[in-house]
């Protein structure tokens, strides 16, 4: 199990707990987009989308930049949610190895037992 400070991750996980916001991230992975574009794409009001983008921005997942009258959103992948995902993959890699190592340890134990019997 991953161990980390839950409080620090709250903002990120809260941001990712919403399907629309995950959709926005997937959309921004393909291309930067204005809040108007995103509102249209997700059939939402401008105000609703602004709120979602705000949550993503606060979690450090998205950055926005206002050029003229258009606020453009881009992926701002930084921070702890990325770290948590990395750590989980790292853990899974070790866990996969250790499952194999379990089998080997069992085999070596059996072998030692058998060798012990032979010696007697």
């Amino acid at each position, binding site marked *: *199990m*991953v*161990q*980390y400070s*839950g409080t620090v*991750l*709250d903002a990120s*996980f*809260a941001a*990712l*707990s*919403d399907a629309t916001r*995950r959709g926005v*991230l*997937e959309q921004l*992975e393909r291309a930067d987009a204005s809040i108007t574009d995103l509102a249209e794409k997700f059939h939402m009001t401008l105000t609703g989308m602004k709120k979602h983008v705000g*949550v993503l921005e606060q979690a450090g997942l998205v950055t926005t930049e206002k050029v003229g009258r258009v606020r453009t959103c881009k*992926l701002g*992948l930084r921070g702890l*949610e*990325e*770290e*948590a*995902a*990395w*750590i*989980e*993959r*790292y*853990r*899974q*890699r*070790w*866990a*996969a*190895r*250790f*499952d*194999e*190592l*379990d*089998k*080997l*340890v*069992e085999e*070596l*134990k059996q072998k*030692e037992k058998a060798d012990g019997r032979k010696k007697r």
Partner: protein
Amino acid sequence: MDERKGSEINPTKYGTTVERKSERELVVTRTFNGPAQIVFDAWTKPELLKRWWAPKSVGLSFLSCEADVRTGGTYRFVFSHASSEQPMSFFGRYVEVTPGSRLVWTNDEGDEDGPVTTVTFEERGGETLVVIHELYPSKKALDDAMASGSISWSGEQFEQLDQLLAAPGVSVERS
């Protein structure tokens, strides 16, 4: 973190845990059902190491596995990887080898940014607790290592995040 709930996700007592202990350190723990000498052998005899270090799901398979496991000795693991035509090499030096209890090695494939890995083997009533401690030279080195395995927001990563979200101990405010 709620210990009782934690044990529900890791139903066996042989679960693998990972913790970023500090800006520069990662710690992995796992208990094995066998004496320390056997577990230590599995980490230090190349013919045994080869059998578990690169399981299929990791995506690597051994081309060669050389390890001169004594203080000052070196190792070199060469793997093929499904996504790469070039073989991948991992190499370094054993800084300390204490039979049955402790291994320390360097990871030199990443120039000077690689961690120093310390593995301890502690036997308790026929079981062995293995603690892997990876100490990076700087916060940046560990941050960079994490960033190099950088994720894209594909479905698979979301599934992993969903699993994290579903884990007890992580409070999520629904907004």
